[in-house]
């Protein structure tokens, strides 16, 4: 059974003492995270009765979950949109701008080629380009969510970022593969 107190139900932004915005102060997030951990972490409860140990684990799990949800920009955008009741349709909506899809195909081919040729420099360059695009899209997200409140547009960017995250993961695996 999960704790039922009002505090346990509050949203992650309130939990970490932050305004519910895409642009957040990373230092405040980290400080709040550590302050919360210092209170709820299982290491503080190891000598206490079972009921309190269980509560501590549930709270710490939630604090960790919240930190992951807010620290990673893509997760943060998803979470903010979900608080607004917006479905980002990441599974159902597969229609992407053709320009974006072309770019994706090109990058995927580049990754395959670099892997085949065992070309680490090419992989690194591709990684840079992907990261650059990710940062650009994150800036747009900040405008769409915080300023213009254009949630459908923000959802579109979330879907794009999901593609790029997958690609970045595959580039990471390619590095591992070239290393073995």
């Amino acid at each position, binding site marked *: 059974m999960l*704790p*039922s*107190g*009002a*505090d*346990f139900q509050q949203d992650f932004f309130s*939990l*970490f*003492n932050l305004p519910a915005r895409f642009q957040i102060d990373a230092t405040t997030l980290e*400080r*709040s995270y*550590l*302050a*919360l*951990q*210092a*209170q*709820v*972490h*299982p*290491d*503080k409860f*190891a*000598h*206490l*009765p*079972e*009921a*309190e140990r269980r*509560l*501590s*684990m549930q*709270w*710490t*799990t939630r604090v*960790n*979950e919240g*930190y*992951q949800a807010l620290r990673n920009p893509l997760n943060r955008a998803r979470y903010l949109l979900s608080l607004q009741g917006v479905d980002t349709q990441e599974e159902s909506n597969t229609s992407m701008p053709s320009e974006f899809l072309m770019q994706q195909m090109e990058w995927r081919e580049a990754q395959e080629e670099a892997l085949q040729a065992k070309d680490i420099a090419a992989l690194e360059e591709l990684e840079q380009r992907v990261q650059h695009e990710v940062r650009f899209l994150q800036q747009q997200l900040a405008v769409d969510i915080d300023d213009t409140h254009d949630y459908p547009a923000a959802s579109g960017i979330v879907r794009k970022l999901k593609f790029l995250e997958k690609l970045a993961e595959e580039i*990471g695996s390619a*590095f*591992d593969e070239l*290393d*073995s």
Partner: protein
Amino acid sequence: MALLQISEPGLSAAPHQHRLAVGIDLGTTNSLVATVRSGISTVLNDEQGCALLPSVVHYAADGEVLVGQMAQEEQSAYPHNTIVSVKRFMGRGLKDVGDVSNLPYRFVEATGSAQAPGMLQLRTAAGVKSPVEVSAEILRVLRLRAEQALGGELVGAVITVPAYFDDAQRQATKDAARLAGLNVLRLLNEPTAAAIAYGLDNAAEGVYAVYDLGGGTFDISILRLSRGVFEVLATNGDSALGGDDFDHRIYCRLLEKNGLSALPAPDIRALLTHARAAKEQLTDHLEARVTAVLSSGEVIDNVLTRAEFHEMSQNLVQRTLQALRKALRDAKLAASEVKGVVMVGGATRMPHIQQAVGDFFGQSPLNNLDPDKVVALGAAIQANVLAGNRSGDDWLLLDVIPLSLGIETMGGLVEKIVPRNSTIPSARAQEFTTYKDGQTAMSIHVVQGERELVSDCRSLAKFELRGIPAMVAGSARIRVTFQIDADGLLSVSAREMASGTEASIVVKPSYGLSDEEITRMLHDSNQYARDDMMARALREQQTEAAQLLEAVDNALRQDGEELLDAAAQARIRGSMDGLRAVIAGSDHQAIKRAVEALNLASTEFAQKRMDKSVKSALAGHKLSELE
């Protein structure tokens, strides 16, 4: 000047304030136990003054069990009955161990109910033994050593495990500790334990790498140390790579040089022992000579050079560097951003390891703590905190899960549900639905690993959800929660959401012992019978009850008036009185029931206290302390 307090022999000075807790490094080659005495972490020696207990267990035909040095002396004469490096077999099946022809054991696969099918066991003169039972013998010796040295029963122990141990290996370690009569306060990752010992000693700040090459396991952990916080950023490794593999390279070279193949078990063991001695000699010398007489009468006399040894083991070193690069990539850091590299484990004494790690980071590795002892020392420091002997100024330890957890989806593919390097404790809920009308059960397969195919990952558990209400296909919503606790261990719970009914869950772990099995094994163990198990169980129950009373009493004094009305306070006090009435008696069950009643009565109070401390965390005063 203050008067010195001298306590009665065998009694600690302040029994209510200091709780006896130890850190145990259960190593592949050697094991150690340490504790914090007068604020200083100290390794506890045996009666001969030795700190290191060789992790070797000998089973004699008459039922006698020898552990450590005495067992080691039997290994060449009785290779089948003398288990060396048992840690390599923890939580493993025969197929995981690979080539067994060069191992001098009689392996069997578990088929009985005590161990899940497929788990590896060893046939000895004293019967079939599981790696869990063998490890428990080692832990029991260390427990007794500590109880003798400290003059009392232990409140609990922190047991270290390789950071790269998976769920099955962790569970096996915890089972072994319970079987040895230890209360496990925490399973702590070995590199993290080393970082605690190193960081607190050196007031280290910044990013550090801990390179831990033990007898049978390799870990690399990247940590960020800042005042009061040890945060593991990434970990990687190989739970089947260690000093033993370097011995094995020498052993194989000896076979080659002498044109030997399948040797009898005593010869395998003898040559492996010679190989290890040669490896150790090559740390300080440029050559090592190996002379041995085989059981056939054939004489072996070879000289190995350091250069030859380095050449034949270079690819093992490369495997560690590969893991290192992966960990840095996961931490999104370059080697140049690492401020210091702490070397842990006896195998890091090899000069080519020191050289390779130094070259990789462009700096000399740190060797200022004894690589054999640093893990136990760090574990003892953490055990002291977990037992509740410190408060206020303690630190925060944020560790991670080493390998991703996933579930099997269509076509034998893995869907990752908790990614590697997630800070623990961690949980993830996943919703499933039925694909047939009227379906009332579904099976879920949990795996651990980074590969895409289920067959390339480790199978952790296959279980069936039963009792799903019959509905149209796709309308049942079963929410399955995967929880990883602070020990890095997984548990699974399930609930049917659409109908609101709690679905029954049948978990069939692929490994691990149930509580009943532990109890039965404790009963079966002759060794333990001498400890007078019933009396011990009663004492443990009484200790737990006394701790609970103390904790609730403290909580009431601190927050009772503020958080509870008079009636609620009276209810808790009533349950406390109920427990006090039975605590001194000998009815184990009555105490257990009264403990459960008090736990239940104080649950809501505990929640309110937790809410209060969460609020206070953000109210500012704790924030300022962390700046």
